[in-house]
């Protein structure tokens, strides 16, 4: 039997996804060992292989077929824009992609003036402002602590993931507009879906039964 390779986005999501897979009898105890230096883990009995990757890289692994299946957030899928099948919403890690900023920035979003937008997600931000809002913006790509940008005057607003909104509130910012709802998704390589149709479809149906 060929191995079906699953790429998991490192972190909380990987743990939650493994829990779902455990419920299906797919086990990989080695993965829970915090001291392991291994990069790839196997469940020989069921013919599955797993590896952990940086979230942004999961769609790439799946597009090229290096992984047959990937589990990753919708934000990464949209930002990377890879050619994949997006077959299941795991309803995990639910949050929203939002435009946020100080309340005073609200007006600049409505009058179409040129504003600066700081974000980790330049593609999503650009697409939203150009194609949905038809507003000319300057996008500033940052790699972390996006909330800082409007406070220190680097940008008027930010585009970022908002879960509870408490970080925003603590820094005097608020959600100004919602771009899209987010959650973890199962993505599948387009060729693997066809070549391993039976096993992959079964896995997805089983996972779907657990999460819905």
């Amino acid at each position: 039997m060929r191995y079906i390779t699953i790429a998991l986005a490192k972190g909380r999501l990987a743990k939650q996804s493994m829990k779902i897979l455990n419920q299906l009898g797919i086990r990989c105890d080695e993965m829970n060992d915090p001291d392991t230096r291994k990069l790839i883990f196997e469940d020989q009995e069921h013919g599955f292989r797993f590896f952990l990757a940086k979230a942004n890289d999961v769609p790439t692994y799946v597009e090229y077929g290096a992984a047959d299946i990937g589990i990753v957030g919708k934000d990464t899928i949209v930002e990377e824009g890879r050619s994949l099948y997006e077959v299941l919403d795991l309803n995990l890690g639910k949050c929203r992609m939002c435009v946020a900023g100080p309340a005073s920035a609200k007006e600049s979003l409505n009058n179409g003036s040129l504003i600066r937008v700081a974000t980790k997600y330049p593609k999503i931000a650009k697409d939203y402002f150009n194609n949905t809002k038809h507003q000319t913006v300057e996008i500033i790509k940052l790699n972390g602590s996006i909330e800082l940008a409007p406070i220190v005057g680097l940008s008027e607003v930010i585009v970022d993931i908002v879960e509870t909104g408490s970080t925003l509130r603590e820094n005097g910012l608020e959600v100004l507009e919602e771009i899209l709802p987010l959650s973890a998704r199962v993505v599948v390589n387009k060729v693997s879906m066809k070549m391993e149709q039976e096993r992959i479809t079964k896995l997805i149906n089983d996972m779907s039964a657990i999460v819905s």
Partner: protein
Amino acid sequence: MNKRLFTTPEGVRDIYDGECKRKLDLETKLRAKLHLYGFEDIETPTFEYFEVFSEERGTVKARDMYKFFDRDGNTLVLRPDMTPSIARCAAKYFKDEKGPVRFCYCGHTFINNSEYQGKQKETTQLGCELINDSSVIADAEMLAATIDCLLEAGLKDFRIDIGDVRFFKALIAESDLDEERIRILKNFIVDKNSFGIKDLLKDENISEELKNILTNLPQFFGGVDCLDKVSSMTGNKDALLVFDHLKALYELMKVYGFEKYIGFDLGMISKYEYYTGIIFHAFTYDVGEPIASGGRYDNLVGQYGKKAAAIGMTIVTDKLLLALSRQGLLSKDTDKPVEIISSERSQSDAVKRAVELRREGKSCTITYNN
């Protein structure tokens, strides 16, 4: 020394050593196969006027083409796709021909897509086009030629999935979805994203039957039995005609003895807008993308001035070779040329020997060694 003298630009590469020979051998074999189907060789220019490939033709997006200007200021492009060129030829040179015209080709295509790092921008495509024939036999011949070529190449484990763009068109004609919705819906179908479709159609004023079939469209792929399953779900007359066509096609594939390679995927929508009937992709293990694709394009040749039905297929030879090598199906080259060592005194003997060997069809080299 200038670094640029050593490297090639991103997305293009040198092909050398055994790989080049394997590639040429493969191309020769596949062309010979296509000749058995009556396809005649054709070569078209590497670059053409932009208009041949422009947006309305429904090929590659304009921004993904390599564009440049000639002395008169005309915009030229390196061909991103072979089919429009062949369609243009057919319209020009066979304007009054009523009977079928068959072409096969092998050439380089160029797509300038910076987002696809790790993908080649120059690829070799080998394929064929059958013009002036709208019959199901023509569809079947095209599929059979594709399968025959893949088998000839030595591939064993592969699958060809057939879809039909008319199916989605027929379904959507029933609804009054606006253009933007249809665009989003298409993207969801391409991504096999059922939950997205469900969400999109939730508040739309369309029949439950249609909602149901559209939501499940991403799952409508598999063997021939999936056709019956789906046809029982719809009363749409045009959609049902598509099923009749696909079933007739499947019956013919059985006659060729190729049915085990055939699958169906009704949720297949091509990125090329020019397709009007069946479309298909060939898949195999170890390469994450289709190794061959094709489809029917009955309106394209007309855009160049001759109304004619047509169908074609393309094999991406680079991908096919990659699949063969990853699956360990490439034959090892064993016949190295005979080496004749010559010293100053034996030069004429060495040359005589070489001429002799070559006359017998054996390859040999002369190495000077004093």
